[in-house]
């Protein structure tokens, strides 16, 4: 996995090195130009990534391991980690459309179940109560704007904002 990550980093660094050069105008005698700093970083990054790859290969050879040791893509897609990532991203993607209240409730439910909370009725009640408490604290007491969503979800959020006692 480390090897794949390092090769990806190396290829990405090479691409960005040429990209930033093409995007920026040339430097002058008293101005280093927009590409100077990123290119220094990228050169250092490429050197260190190569060192890391060499270190990895040396260690793998010394220990008699395969170069792609520890890569289990099928296992990853079946893992709790993958589901957790999907839930986090689903919430981030849904937030602008359905707003904070529904996405918070759904997230608390889904992630709670992933972490072993299997009593569904209790999880539903708990998620509703927690959503309302968090909403009242941040949107109400602290006056921190939370995502309202669009369409009917926006109307729903505005309704809640209207009934907040703060």
């Amino acid at each position, binding site marked *: 996995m480390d090897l794949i990550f390092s090769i990806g980093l190396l290829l990405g660094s090479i691409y960005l090195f040429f990209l930033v050069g093409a*995007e920026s*105008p040339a430097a002058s005698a008293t*101005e280093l130009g927009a590409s100077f700093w990123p290119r220094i970083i990228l050169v250092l990054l490429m050197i260190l990534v190569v060192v890391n790859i060499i270190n990895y290969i040396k260690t793998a050879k010394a220990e008699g391991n395969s170069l792609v040791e520890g890569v289990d893509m099928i296992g990853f897609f079946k893992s709790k980690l993958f589901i957790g990532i999907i839930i986090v*991203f689903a919430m981030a993607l849904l937030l602008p459309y359905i707003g904070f209240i529904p996405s918070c409730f759904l*997230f608390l439910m889904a992630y709670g179940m992933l972490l072993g909370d299997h009593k569904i009725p209790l999880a539903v009640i708990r998620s509703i109560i927690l959503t309302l408490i968090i909403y009242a604290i941040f949107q109400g007491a602290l006056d921190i704007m*939370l995502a309202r969503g669009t369409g009917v979800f926006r109307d729903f959020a505005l309704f809640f904002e209207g009934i907040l006692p703060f």
Partner: protein
Amino acid sequence: MFDLLATGLSIVLNPMTFLMLAGGTILGVIFGAMPGVSASMAVALALPFAYSMKPVISIAFLVSVYCASITGGGITAILFKIPGTPSSAPTTFDGYPMAQRGEAGKALGFSLIASAFGGMVAAFAMALISPQLATVALKFGPSELFAVSFLGLSVLSCLDSDHIVKTLISGLLGLLLACVGMDPMLGIARFTWGNSTLLSGIEMIPVMIGLFAITEVLKQTVKPKKIDAEKDSSSGNGQMGSVVPKFSEIWATKFTMIRASIIGTVVGILPGAGATIASFLSYAIEKKVSKHPEKLGTGIADGIVASEAANNAATGGSMVPLLSLGIPGGNAAAIMMTALVIQGVQIGPMLVKTQPEYLASVFGSMIVTNIIMVIVALGVAKVFAQILAVPYSILGPVICIFATIGAYALNNNTGDVMLMAGAGIIGYLFVKLGYNSAALVLGLVLGSMCESNFRRAYTLTNGSLYQIFTKPITAVIMVACIIMLVYPFIKPLIKGKKTA
């Protein structure tokens, strides 16, 4: 000099002002302890209250909120691995492992005492030698500020001595992320691929929240680990009986506390530097001078003390450029400046001469706040530590929600929530592969400061690198940087020679 201190104390010990300070401290600690509410957000939330106060009282009130919120940020860093502010990030290195071992109360106790000590040292230093410090701060031009930010970056080599190459790669990735958006000198778009959202750059707060909080929740999802509220409580009933460390334990950290407070104060007065560099630098120096550097990062008091004393001392230090030079060191200072300007206070070099009561009020407020803060924060910490007793199937998702609010509330932008989620996954990958998330945060924090100051210095010296690096302050700091960067590589060679 002592007149300033006496005036400050007479202002803040007025019953009405004292009450305001106590209220500000309570608000600050609670805001700071809430994951997602940063120090600047806490000051912004307290601003409406300040408008109705007299200008002198309002600055004292806002300072109390600011100082207390930085301390409050340490509470969540220890308990949930969510640093309330970037400056609390090094607190997670030792604070969170202590909490996982069931010593949350003790870790919080060290954090609060160190914060109060750091704040007090900074306040006294400011009261006694602020004019001199302001003069020194003025000597820091772009080349010196580049050297200071580079000094902060040199910390990278000692963040994780077992994976130096990977830590440096992580730091460079952070520096590269800081390049995304408009170039600071010419305004040219870099790495934006025509996307207008990326023009404003990568926000640090969502990345930090993702790398620390979301990564931790993902880790717990894969391999759940029970966190006890307080295992070593003398009462044995799960209460935080040992929230205050023993005097002998505090005494054992005295040199760390003093060192960190001095570093924090000095770094804090530098315009544009601030608490984050102070806390990282202090932690790194602690790793260099500690008798047991290998224990730092495994959950020892010295690590918490080094970070918390420095970041609180830096908040005090940052008040000097704000009030005497009119340069806000960070977002919170900028908000305070706005509040004062609206009330007709003329901030800048003339303030000390024409309206010294404002400076006095800040110093007095810092001293009193740091005393009240220990009592208030202990109470808040006790309540927060009980949260650790909540099952992780409830706590984990709630932490994610707080993290989401923190990322979203920054700019009311759901793109920042996506950024946070992405950072969380990268953080998990970093943990699995032995890279360093803190190094990435450090690179992201310092990247822009480092680049803009270096390029400014280059332009000011008409392109002469010799002139940049031979300025006395710059040269001294750069030599220190080189020693710090090279030392981890030559240390094994020196040891090898000695044993041979």
